[in-house]
């Protein structure tokens, strides 16, 4: 059995080792000093003999001299030993204090560093990076925690790749279905027109039906062309080319061709300026406007208002159409979502993509049978 001590056991063992060693060392030091002091004080007995002497002979004087020297030496030694004991015990205690703090910091680091690693790894997982793998080292509990974390991240990685594959397959299926449907729609009238032309080729009616059939074929080829363009536009990854312009004047230009057929009212701040890609701006406004036209009853007014509020320009496009249900409101910016008869559901998805590229925001407020308002918020440009 492979035994690995846990955090608490390690800390307790280290603590006991350190402090017991410290106590033993300090105790041994003081015992040693006490013994030396005891030995030194033995010499003090000479002091009593000294008092009994009279200094009449040279021998007595020599003895007295010896006794006094010994006595004074002992006093000096005792003082020095006392001083040594005071100084060295302070130094030893200080070094032990520093060492224990140092060891504590190391242990603390050993415990907290893997926790920090785990925290960072969890943050990576949160960001969607499941490939994160922690080195399986450290003390028992930390090692086990890392092992669990690694198996969890591996499991999540597997699940994510399975989900991605499933999602990819689903997207391709959906895309193929939409594409097939959208291509089939114009192909049928083209096929019918060609069949009709073949049938009537050598008859008198041929001349009558020829222009109409050619027009249908041309129309449907145009539709196919537009379909290809829509897909291409959506797939294109274009970086915005920012320029500063007046949104009121720009919208005024955009709605000009519509004005002879539809009632579009533009109002609001005429002097504000925004920093936006003009081509993207055109695509966003035309897409939303086209949707508003498609859902509005004839002769119904479509309102476009421009406001400046708290450093932002708000462009509101409001129609009085059928409105969007709460459920559908969540999906309108998803690709291939459309409730229109003629639509592939890429218009608003493209709008959302362009809004993001230009660092703007879009909100939709809608009420069934009353209408919908698209609200575009972008930063006002102050010269």
């Amino acid at each position: 059995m492979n035994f690995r001590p846990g955090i608490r056991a390690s800390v307790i063992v280290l603590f006991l080792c350190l402090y017991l060693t410290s106590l033993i060392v300090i105790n041994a030091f003081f015992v040693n000093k006490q013994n030396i002091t005891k030995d030194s004080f033995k010499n003090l007995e000479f002091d009593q003999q000294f008092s009994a002497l009279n200094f009449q002979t040279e021998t007595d004087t020599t003895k007295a001299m010896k006794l006094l020297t010994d006595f004074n030496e002992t006093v000096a030694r005792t003082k020095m030993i006392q001083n040594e004991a005071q100084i060295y015990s302070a130094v030893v205690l200080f070094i032990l204090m520093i060492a224990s703090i140092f060891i504590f910091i190391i242990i603390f680091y050993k415990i907290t560093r893997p926790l920090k690693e785990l925290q960072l790894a969890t943050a990576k997982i949160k960001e969607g990076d499941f490939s994160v793998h922690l080195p399986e080292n450290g003390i028992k509990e930390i090692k086990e925690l890392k092992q669990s974390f690694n198996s969890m991240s591996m499991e999540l990685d597997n699940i994510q790749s399975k989900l991605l594959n499933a999602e990819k397959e689903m997207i391709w299926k959906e895309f193929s279905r939409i594409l097939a449907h959208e291509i089939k729609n114009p192909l049928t009238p083209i096929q019918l027109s060609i069949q009709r032309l073949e049938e009537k080729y050598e008859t008198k009616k041929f001349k009558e039906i020829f222009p109409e059939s050619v027009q249908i074929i041309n129309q449907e080829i145009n539709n196919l062309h537009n379909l290809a363009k829509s897909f291409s536009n959506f797939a294109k990854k274009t970086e915005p080319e920012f320029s500063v312009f007046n949104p009121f004047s720009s919208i005024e230009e955009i709605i000009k061709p519509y004005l002879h057929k539809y009632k579009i009212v533009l109002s609001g701040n005429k002097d504000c300026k925004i920093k936006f890609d003009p081509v993207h701006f055109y695509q966003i406004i035309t897409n939303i406007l086209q949707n508003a036209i498609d859902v509005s009853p004839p002769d119904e007014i479509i309102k476009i208002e421009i406001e400046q509020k708290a450093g932002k320009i708000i462009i509101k496009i409001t129609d009085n159409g059928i409105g969007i249900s709460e459920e559908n409101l969540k999906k309108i910016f998803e690709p291939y979502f459309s409730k229109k008869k003629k639509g592939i559901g890429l218009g608003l998805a493209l709008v959302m993509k362009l809004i993001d590229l230009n660092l703007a925001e879009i909100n939709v407020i809608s009420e069934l049978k009353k209408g919908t308002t698209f609200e575009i918020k972008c930063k006002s440009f102050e010269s």
Partner: protein
Amino acid sequence: MFQSLLSKVVSGVISLSMMLLSSYEGNNAAFSELVSLIFQKNIVFKTQLVEAFENDFESVFKSGKQIDIFFDVHIRIQGREPFTETFKHSVLFDPLKQYYSVYIQETDEESKTDNIVDLRNLISKVEYSYSGRRSAEMIVSITSYLPKIQLDDSGKNYDLMMLWNFKKPKIKKTVLIKENEF
């Protein structure tokens, strides 16, 4: 250089330990201001050790052992090798007659005193007469230290620097001498 750094670290650790964990005072030995004067074409540097022999020294002096106080003099003249000399002040106690014999090496003077205050004054004063190369600008430094002594026959050495908290008092001064003073 490494030795000097090590001694500084050791001294720092001891000072910090004493400050935090010990009630031992020792002696905060230091030099008074270094004064220079011209005497008989020599430059005499005068200074004095202060607060050097107040605590615990009396019993050490009375141990009967010869106690030496060493002084290192360094004189640096720009662009030249520094001049270095070491001299000492010695104290020897006679236990029977109860007086201290003092020898001041730099002046080659011997004296006797039975008073500890006089003794402190005698051994603290430094009067070093310099007769070597001279210059208008000289950097003079004097460092003092104490030796290790044996107080019995056990062979154990007692470091007297302990009484100075392991700090060597040092004084350094740039001395400017006018040409007409020579």
